[in-house]
């Protein structure tokens, strides 16, 4: 079942080299990662998911609440739902950051995100996100896999399973600096889906970029010898395997394994180039903030995300995290939130602008968000607690209504009340934008057809462009 499909970008030069060496007996590529037809015409071809670990406060960034200004310090007049740190729950707390209407669309963005604010007309801000996890682990599992307590395939794995990849020479699903805890590998693992759909991690969140750059993907560089020697080595192996297979009647597994080695060789040739951010112009690097200490790390993640995405990697995740959650400000939020927003604001805006300038934004779905938002009431003196009952994320590009706001929270920003977007609905919508029907994207396991959206999920039609 070896199907012909696109080789993706940049492999032509390599092709002649390989043909010379007869390493490409047939230019056919198949297997589990072959590019597959979506269920219907997609609005986006690729996803870039920018994950802010810890919980960005929506009421301080994208969901202004005048009621908090007028009722600052007063007790929350409605019932408080299950809260992570109920003991220290205090009164309502106003946002100290000023909101302004931005762009022609007039989407309000607070002064925490001045650069993203300049992209307001490209954003679709969803203000009615709802999840069920009150602690980080549960909330993150749900955001990335749909369930907060079981082992299920990650969103990226489902997408890759549904669509395959456009570029066989790179992994189809890459996650840059994932966190090592609170869900850990589960956030990009396959669970019962075949291992081929697993995300490939590039470093992990406490690591500095400098420790990742030289060897971003495990085992992609030849050991000791030159690539010419490796070519000879692989040729010898190929001949040996070919003779072994010839003595046996066609066995697709043996054939697949022979193909895997050939793909590996091509990957080896393409990956270093794809990861080499130094090939970008100074202007581009500045656009992402690579020249500033505060933004260098996440800027690199965003720029790398663009390079990988433009080379056909189906799903790229970039996580903003560190040795601890970057955004989990149970206390001292007034000091800490601005530090965090400074680290990501310019890189995110840079990514959106860069994609747009390259004509890639239309076919790339950028999703930005956290596992939950934060409470409108204070925690302790100057913090905010976890709030999965109503929070904001935004999308840009790939088929979403530009410069729009979807859904709303109540007057306190506590509960989503209008066009509630449960995480299942978000997943259904993302898959829809990718050309996949979340009810048809199923995998039979243990006698049951499983879905990313379990038995729920409604596509948010109103936000489609």
């Amino acid at each position, binding site marked *: 079942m070896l199907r012909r499909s696109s080789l993706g970008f940049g492999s032509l030069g390599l092709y002649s080299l390989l043909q010379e060496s007869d390493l490409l007996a047939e230019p056919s590529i198949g297997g589990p990662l072959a590019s597959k037809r979506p269920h219907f015409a997609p609005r986006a071809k690729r996803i870039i998911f920018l994950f802010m670990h810890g919980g960005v406060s929506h009421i301080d960034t994208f969901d202004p609440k005048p009621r908090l200004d007028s009722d600052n310090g007063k007790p929350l007049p409605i019932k408080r739902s299950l809260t992570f740190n109920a003991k220290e729950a205090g009164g309502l707390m106003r946002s*100290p950051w000023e909101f302004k209407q931005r762009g022609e669309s007039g989407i309000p963005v607070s002064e925490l995100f001045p650069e993203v604010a300049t992209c307001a007309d490209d954003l679709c801000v969803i203000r009615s996100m709802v999840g069920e996890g009150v602690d980080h682990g549960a909330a993150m599992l749900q955001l990335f896999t749909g369930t907060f307590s079981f082992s299920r395939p990650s969103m990226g794995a489902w997408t890759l399973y549904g669509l395959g990849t456009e570029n066989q020479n790179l992994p189809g699903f890459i996650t840059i600096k994932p966190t090592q805890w609170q869900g*850990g590998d589960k956030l990009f693992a*396959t669970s019962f889906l075949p*291992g081929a759909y697993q995300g490939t991690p590039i470093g992990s969140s406490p690591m500095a970029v400098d420790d990742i750059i030289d060897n971003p993907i495990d085992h992609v560089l030849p050991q000791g010898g030159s690539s010419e020697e490796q070519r000879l080595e*692989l040729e010898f192996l190929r001949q040996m395997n070919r003779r072994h297979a010839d003595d046996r009647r066609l066995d697709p597994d043996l054939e697949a394994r022979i193909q*895997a080695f050939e793909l590996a060789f091509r990957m080896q040739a393409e990956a270093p180039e794809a990861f080499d951010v130094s090939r970008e112009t100074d202007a581009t690097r500045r656009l992402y903030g690579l020249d500033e200490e505060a933004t260098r790390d996440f800027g690199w993640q965003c720029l790398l995300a663009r390079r990988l995405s433009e080379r056909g990697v189906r799903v790229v995740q970039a996580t903003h995290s560190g040795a601890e959650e970057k955004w989990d400000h149970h206390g001292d939020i007034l000091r800490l939130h601005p530090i965090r927003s400074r680290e990501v604001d310019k890189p995110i805006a840079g990514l959106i602008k860069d994609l747009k300038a390259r004509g890639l934004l239309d076919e790339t779905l950028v999703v930005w968000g956290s596992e939950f938002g934060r409470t409108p009431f204070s925690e302790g003196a100057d913090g905010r607690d976890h709030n999965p009952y109503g929070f904001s994320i935004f999308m840009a590009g790939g088929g979403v209504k530009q410069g729009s706001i979807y859904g709303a929270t109540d007057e306190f920003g506590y509960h989503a*009340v209008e066009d509630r977007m449960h995480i299942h609905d978000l997943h259904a919508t993302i898959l829809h934008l990718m050309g996949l029907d979340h009810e048809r994207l199923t995998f039979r396991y243990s006698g049951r057809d499983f879905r990313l959206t379990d038995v729920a999920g409604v596509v948010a039609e109103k936000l489609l462009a």
Partner: protein
Amino acid sequence: MRRLPSSPVIAALGVLLLGGSLPAETGDEYFEKRVRPLLVQHCGQCHGEELQTAGINFRDPDTVIGGAVVSGDESSALIRAVRYESAIKMPPGSKLPQEAIETLVDWVRMGAPWPGYEPAEMAEVDLDEEAPRSSHWAFQPISDPPVPDIGESAWVRNDIDRFVLARLRQAGLEPAPPAAKPALLRRAKFDLQGLPPDKEDVRRLDDDNSPEAFRNIVDDFLSSPHYGERWGRHWLDVARYADSTGVDEDHPFGDSWRYRDYVVAAFNDDLPFDQFVREQIAGDLLPAPEGAPINARGVVATGFLALGPMALAQRDPIQKKYDVVDEQIDTTSKAFLGLTVACARCHDHKFDPILTSDYYALAGIFASTRTFDDWRRNGSRYHKEPLVASDVYQRYKQAADALERLERIRRIALQAAKLGYVAAGPATRIADHIRASAGDLPQNGLDAESIEWFRAYLQPRPSPRKHLAAWRDASADQSAVAAALQAELVQTLQARMALYEAWVEEALEAARGEGDQELPELPTDLPTSLFFGDLFDDGGLFDFDPGDIKDRFAPGDSQRIATLDAEIAQGREALPEEPPMANSVAEGEPVRQRIFRRGQHKNPGPIVSKRFPLVLAGDGQPDVPAGSGRLELASWIASAQNPLTARVIVNRVWLWHFGEGLVRTPNNYGLRGESPTHPQLLDWLARRFVASGWSIKALHRLIMDSATYRMSSAISDQAFRLDPENRLWSRFERRRLTIEELRDSYLQISGRLDPAVGGNTDLAAGGLVEFDRNNRRIDPDDYTRRSLYLPLMRNKLPNLLGLFDFGDATTANGQRSVTNVAPQALYLMNSDFAQSAAHGVASRLNGSGADRVRQAYRSVLARPPSEQESDRALQYVQARPDQEAAWTSLCKVLLASNEFHYVE
């Protein structure tokens, strides 16, 4: 369909009629006219379609009846809430008018009629329900099929072959020819030990030309401890074994390795499988062996239940508990019964005759079992059980607790001493420092660092500190403000210290007194202030460890702490050795289990008693007399009468030998599972297995002695056409090595394998805790013990395992998938592990030329090269300038070859 009028309503109506003050409407009318508008108006905003606070939606009776409202029960949560009688007062802020409350009470008394509503489970959970009948094959008793009469056949070696040959002949096929000796040897060695044959194995088989030769080799392989490592690992897949809790916080279990070793030993000792089942479900409840104080092995065996994934940080304790119960039901039913019972958590099983009541009848068993020690608290701990007699453990526990009490007192005594020091010293000069930091005072004689701290602290901030408002107020007298801050602080310190002092005295009395006295509660309302917090919390001026300023303590404090130090040292000295512990389950508080409608515990339904699924165990099951019911469950599963248990394990063993089972869905024997390819052979094997005393090793011998097992992997034209999927067993299925086989073989062939069996891999102490670049605890590239011993942190499984289809150690895995993808190839070409294995093989070659090539082939592929192969290899090596690198490269290619990675 209305549920009304049921008897309580009629009774209520009767009362009402007699009383004369009754609503004249029917129940439905009453609800529609009076109750629904009231609920919508007063409650709908938080409990409606949009927002379903606490899961309650007054537009959906499913979320109300049986939960907040129990029909006929005036003490229903709803009524208590609207009467403001419970902690939950509804609606919040303003109580309903009395009239409205009475309307609700009347409605509940009437039986809470709700037009159009009939609770789903009321229909399903007729507690006298009859067992669903199913003619499905797997639920029928195991038959006793006759061995097919196939006449004479030179091919047949035992009765398995007659079943197989009969089907092959029906299809017009002949079995593949027997495998050649080397191939058979390799097959058997990997199959039974997960390792490649070594020189000794090859020589033995070459030398032994008797008809018993292969049988002897099999016996030999079965008696090696490495057999248990290989077959134990198969079972560990089913038992979703791992060393940490996974899900959210991924805490290491610590003693999970004991369960792993138990499984390995069970296979090595050929523990009868029915006993193996009983021990894993209820080993703690089985009698201790003669002379032993407790059944330590049985306790360890329940790790099967205890080592599942669990969300320790889940904030909703009931959800947390029942997610674990669900996981235990899922794993137990899949592992032993091949059933997906957990599908019935929220609704009757869509495909199989498993009812929601069946699920909750089992849930009652696991919910009455202790898996957490304190499941109601945030941040629960999993349960551990000592593996020594209880008095031995108690002695240790008492000593350890006493020591811990002293250490706790010491911590507080240190705090008190620190407060005393600050109160008497630095705090008395706070005002000066504050003023100096503002430039009001010269810095002479003051501490420059402290002044700097205050300068930063008193900077204007976006959210001003209220308690510093006076300081910022330009009109205030700054020296008076500073003095007031100081005075307030000193007062706080002294009051706080006094409470600590009093507590320490009281606690010391308790700790030094007779028996195990609990320490007094530390007062929760310790005097504090915002200013105090700023100074003592993280980053505060006085945020230092009291241990660092011991020399500045008041003499009395120093004396007291020195005494405590001595007592603690003495306690440590006298502490008995820490007893071994096991991650296990134990009997818990008995639970009268209710059905949770739609799987939601906030929506409880009727009570179900503990029992086993009706379709399998029938109705009229005896009650569980006492305890959790695990013992009864274990006996029922491990019974020869259970139609599934023997079939399921026999099929697993077949699958692990042949790559596919007779039933190709090893964890699903339900209606969505596949039917057996050879139903009679399956039943025949199951019967033989039970008759042999549930002996797994006897089953191995039977299977491996068959001509079916000894076929080659060659596929004839006919078989290719008629039996492409090998469902008739027309040949031996070629299979790729598992990651464990791959890794262990590389280690063995390159002479690096550490063959030590069992023991704690030790996640916590010494040597192995180093984090590699991916933050993983052990780098498998450097670890030389068998792969079985790699620690399995669920959320940080070694990349290598995922790369080669290990699975995720989170759900029962009956059959690993096999993928062939490029990153695997990259690993075999470029990893340190592959490189050092190749180097290890190459460095053990000697001689030169063809001789060296022959050795390389023999060590890696356990066969000599053909002449042509030898020539090609030599050409390859000689064409490269660096000979050492060239030989290493040759070995790497041999190790990476399909021939090596597939077993035929």
